[in-house]
């Protein structure tokens, strides 16, 4: 199993309840805004601690409330691409890419730069990037951190149609070339049908 999730969590008076298993490839968490999709990604990444449950990714248990296991976010090796990019504004693109650099990265720095077509952006500040450029840098930063799995939070939602196509292609290539479990959040049916191998409705 790529993802084996059993989560009960309450944010304010909104309960989030999830029981799901998914095999290799890209798994889409699909549902309307406000269904708690991003919260689930945050729990898998270790940024939010679920009230109760168990989170296993690619055979490793990251969280288990009954066994008191809760791996810190820094040790989970999640390649998290946030919806808003979250590039560090005080570092140039190159420093952003290298921030989490890890020997386990699936591709070398040069290969990832090439793969994402961001070689010409290395000396730029994040504030000067377009939405599509920032998203590609964010993907590159996540890949260079040597992730065991990828978490993609609506990576297309803030982009115009041309950029959507561009990033969709990048995601399809990652799926094909990296053979890494991917958990993908979206509220767009067409997007999910195009990219997902498994769908978890919320």
């Amino acid at each position, binding site marked *: 199993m790529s993802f084996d999730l059993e989560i009960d969590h309450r944010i304010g008076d909104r309960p989030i309840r999830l029981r799901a298993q998914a095999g290799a490839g890209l798994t889409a968490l699909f549902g309307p805004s406000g269904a708690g999709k991003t919260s689930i990604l*945050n729990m898998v*990444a*270790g*940024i939010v601690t679920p009230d109760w449950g168990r989170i296993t990714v690619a055979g490793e248990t990251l969280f288990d409330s009954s066994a008191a296991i809760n791996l*810190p*976010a*820094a*040790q*989970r*090796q*999640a*390649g*998290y691409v*946030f919806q*808003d990019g*979250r590039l*560090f*504004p*005080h570092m*140039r693109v190159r420093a952003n890419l290298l*921030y*989490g650099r*890890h020997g386990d990265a699936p591709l070398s720095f040069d290969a990832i730069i090439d793969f994402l077509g961001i070689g010409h952006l290395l000396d730029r*500040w994040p*504030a*000067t990037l377009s939405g599509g450029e920032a998203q590609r840098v964010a993907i590159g*930063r*996540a890949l260079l*951190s*040597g992730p065991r799995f990828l978490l993609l939070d609506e990576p297309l939602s803030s982009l115009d149609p041309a950029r959507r196509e561009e990033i969709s292609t990048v995601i399809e290539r990652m799926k094909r070339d990296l053979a890494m479990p991917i958990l993908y959040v979206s509220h767009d049916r067409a997007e999910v049908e195009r990219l997902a191998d498994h769908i978890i409705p919320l």
Partner: protein
Amino acid sequence: MILSPEEWSIVALSLQVSLVAVGLMLPVAFALAWLLARSRFPGKLLVDALVHLPLVVPPVVTGWLLLLLFGANGPLGRLFEQALGVSFMFRWTGAALASAIMAMPLMVRAMRLSIEGIDRRLEQAAQTLGAKPRRVFLTISLPLALPGILAGLVLGFARSIGEFGATITFVSDVPGETRTLPIAIYSALQMPGAETAVTRLAVISILLSLAALVASEALARRAGGGRTNHVL
């Protein structure tokens, strides 16, 4: 304008007192700012109020409280004397202490604001990239708080350079020890026929403060890289 040896020694003493005050207060103020911005603990309101006390209480009262606490017979005064061999009475160290206490609220406020302004989600992003808390602090939180830290330094320095009431109450007016610029201006004003001396000292004081402001703007610009930062 060429300074006389006596004026030089006043300027040097003022700089010494202010730099030591702000330098020693910097880590304390940052720790307080971090605590107030990031933690919840019982008595937080009290700590917040104590930090701001020197801002709202008449400086003379602050000076008097310092006298009670850090005077020769004050509990903290005795502690410092015995543990570190540092005494404050009628000494420049006392002037620095008074300056530091008076600068504290401004420094803490500026730093706290910038710490509260840090996007916590960037710290989370750093965590997911494998950064441990110490590295997150050093590479994300601290640089993002830097404009506020610089602003705190400038405000604190300006407040120290101008400090009068608490200092003269606490350590009096001792030439060469506690006679900083404002106190020198005040004592010159007490003497007939010292108008020129007063004017000269006042001009020096204005130039010094302006220089600090310009220097900090330049620093902020460098620290901000490609982005524009303003200290004030």
